[in-house]
């Protein structure tokens, strides 16, 4: 299983639709400060079901919707689609590719979709159970999480070990 394609629209600084195609190997994301690189990482976490707005650097989940630029009005809908290659059938679905989508409307209405049919957050979590997509993959995502991992109390640090046991 590997990531195939990521489509971001209305999420954080991605006002207009943007599509990243991933290869199985190593993809680098580069660019100046503040251009949106970490926002791509946030988009992946978000579509996989991240519930903590704080770990997405937001105060409330509504903050992930594009809130406008100096010349552009805010958007009302954030939508992120992640397509995964499933040729090795690691995900418990028949299709050779699996598409998950998450939407959030400024009204608060939100939706999760697997292969374009609406589902619950729980269905997304269950989809990835036992695939290794989870805390560890996540813990590698946050910028400046090196200090988080090392500055935590010895007591807190054990989350990483409990996750594996």
């Amino acid at each position, binding site marked *: 299983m590997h990531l195939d394609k990521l489509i971001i629209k209305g999420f954080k600084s991605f006002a207009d639709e943007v599509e990243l195609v991933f290869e199985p190997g190593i993809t680098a994301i580069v*660019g100046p400060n503040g251009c949106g690189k970490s926002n791509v990482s946030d988009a992946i976490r978000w579509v996989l079901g991240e519930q903590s707005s704080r770990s997405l650097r937001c105060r409330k989940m509504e903050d992930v919707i594009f809130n406008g630029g100096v010349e552009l009005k805010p958007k009302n809908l954030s939508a992120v689609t992640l397509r995964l290659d499933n040729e090795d059938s690691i995900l418990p679905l028949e299709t050779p590719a699996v598409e998950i989508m998450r939407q959030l409307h400024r009204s608060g209405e939100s939706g999760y979709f697997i292969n374009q049919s609406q589902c619950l957050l729980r269905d997304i979590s269950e989809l990835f159970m036992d695939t290794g997509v989870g805390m560890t993959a996540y813990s590698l995502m946050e910028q400046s999480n090196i200090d988080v991992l090392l500055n935590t109390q010895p007591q*807190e640090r054990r989350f990483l070990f409990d996750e594996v046991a």
Partner: protein
Amino acid sequence: SRERFMESFERIQKNFQEVFVQLFDGGETELLLTDPEDVLESGIEIIARPPGKRPQSITMLSGGERSLVAIALLFAVFKIKPSPFCVLDEVDAALDEANVMRFTRLIKEFAKDTQFIIITHNKRTMEIADVMYGVTMEQAGVSKLVSVKFAA
């Protein structure tokens, strides 16, 4: 369940030592349970001995050394419970050139089984990418993508 924790703890220890040696080009490391009597609640202490130095708590290590220790710990866990993909966001920021090279060598090795998405400002790290996306913000406040794909 105590056995299960200890078993995975020892596997992490072993992997941590191996990855540490790759990133530090030598040296030793140790994971200590602060309370060996109460394994399921105990905190976990990290002692590291970079080559040429004496063992010390990670608080005394330098910024770059701490980055390497954190990366070694994450990959030690990763070896046990691999994820099909992994996103790294500027974990190389504090590394000098020699350490970035060791870091990239480690990534290339793990990349045989894991897909990596690496956010970086570092030119040496960019060199190991198969594909590179540039993110820009020409229009005020709006992110756009520029794909800089490499030939295979």
